[in-house]
């Protein structure tokens, strides 16, 4: 066989080996991700530091930074319950702002879907978009409508579904102008 042809054949084999290694490692990572149970954030855990983009205006917001207590709300445009809760949340966000609690809707969905979900409200300025990997860290089960209460030190105070006992307690405190120190 011609020497050049032999070298080109070996080169093709080498590229195939490189591709095989790459694909094998990618398949292994995917399998591990699928097998590993998602680690949900629980009370006492620290919210991982990450930066999110505000849906309206594109500003950047640091999540997990110490300073202000916040409530992160997880809504999905595919969930009818979430759509039903949006008008009520719009008024609740204003009350939370007045009480010193930063309330953010957090999503990984595309802008258009979010715009459709929030249509008719001013919640776009209170909505943060995260990349898929960061979203997996804060809401690995993709629960919705769900929430995370984070205290001023960045620690998780409570987590659950919007409408559960902790959520209703927060609602009562906000609508009763009761302050939010005990809830967040």
């Amino acid at each position: 066989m011609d020497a050049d042809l032999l070298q080109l054949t070996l080169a093709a084999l080498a590229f195939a080996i490189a591709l095989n290694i790459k694909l094998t490692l990618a398949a292994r990572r995917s399998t591990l991700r699928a097998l590993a149970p998602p680690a949900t954030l629980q009370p006492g855990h620290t919210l991982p530091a990450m930066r999110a983009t505000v849906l309206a205006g594109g500003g950047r917001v640091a999540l997990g930074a110490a300073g202000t207590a916040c409530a992160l709300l997880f809504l999905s445009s595919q969930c009818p319950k979430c759509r039903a809760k949006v008008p009520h949340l719009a008024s609740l966000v204003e009350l939370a702002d007045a009480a010193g609690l930063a309330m953010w809707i957090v999503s990984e969905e595309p802008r258009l879907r979010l715009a459709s979900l929030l249509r008719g409200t001013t919640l776009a300025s209170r909505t943060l978009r995260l990349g898929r990997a960061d979203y997996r860290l804060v809401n690995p089960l993709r629960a919705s409508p769900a929430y995370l209460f984070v205290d001023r030190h960045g620690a998780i105070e409570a987590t659950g579904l919007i409408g559960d006992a902790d959520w209703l307690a927060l609602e009562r405190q906000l609508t009763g102008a009761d302050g939010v120190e005990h809830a967040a």
Partner: protein
Amino acid sequence: MSAAFGADILRWFIGFVLLAACIGKLRTFARFRDNLETSFGVAPRHGALLAPAVIGVELLLAALVLGPFAWLGMAAALPLFAAFTILLAWRMKRDGALRCGCFGEAERNLSGYDLMRNLLIVAAIALFLALPGGAGVPPASSVLAAGLGAILAVLAIDFHDVAHLLVAH
């Protein structure tokens, strides 16, 4: 194996690594920019400039290394990788855990294996610079060197996973 062929393998290896670093950072650009702030303390205003600058420098070096100015590109890549490695080692020692997204990896902190990978890259560049420059290698041999360089590049980029697999089994 001639020194020129060995040098050509190293040239392709480093060129592919630099290209992969550019592509990985571009694919997860927002995360890389944020990591500059959260892991390296770069102010957001500066991060918005530094992130594309780092990618641009890596792309330029890849073009030099894979183009006709390989020695110049390698000579410039050596202090770049050495500086990255020293910076990462210092931040890891100081903060314990940090994320880089240097090759687009998203969901894990940097490990000692990543530092070892960088040291191997620095050693490969130094070896290339130490090898005597020759008249080059024939095109068919250079294609073979590219294939072997690609294997080295894949192993280097995924060194963390490869090392874990080797240690675990």
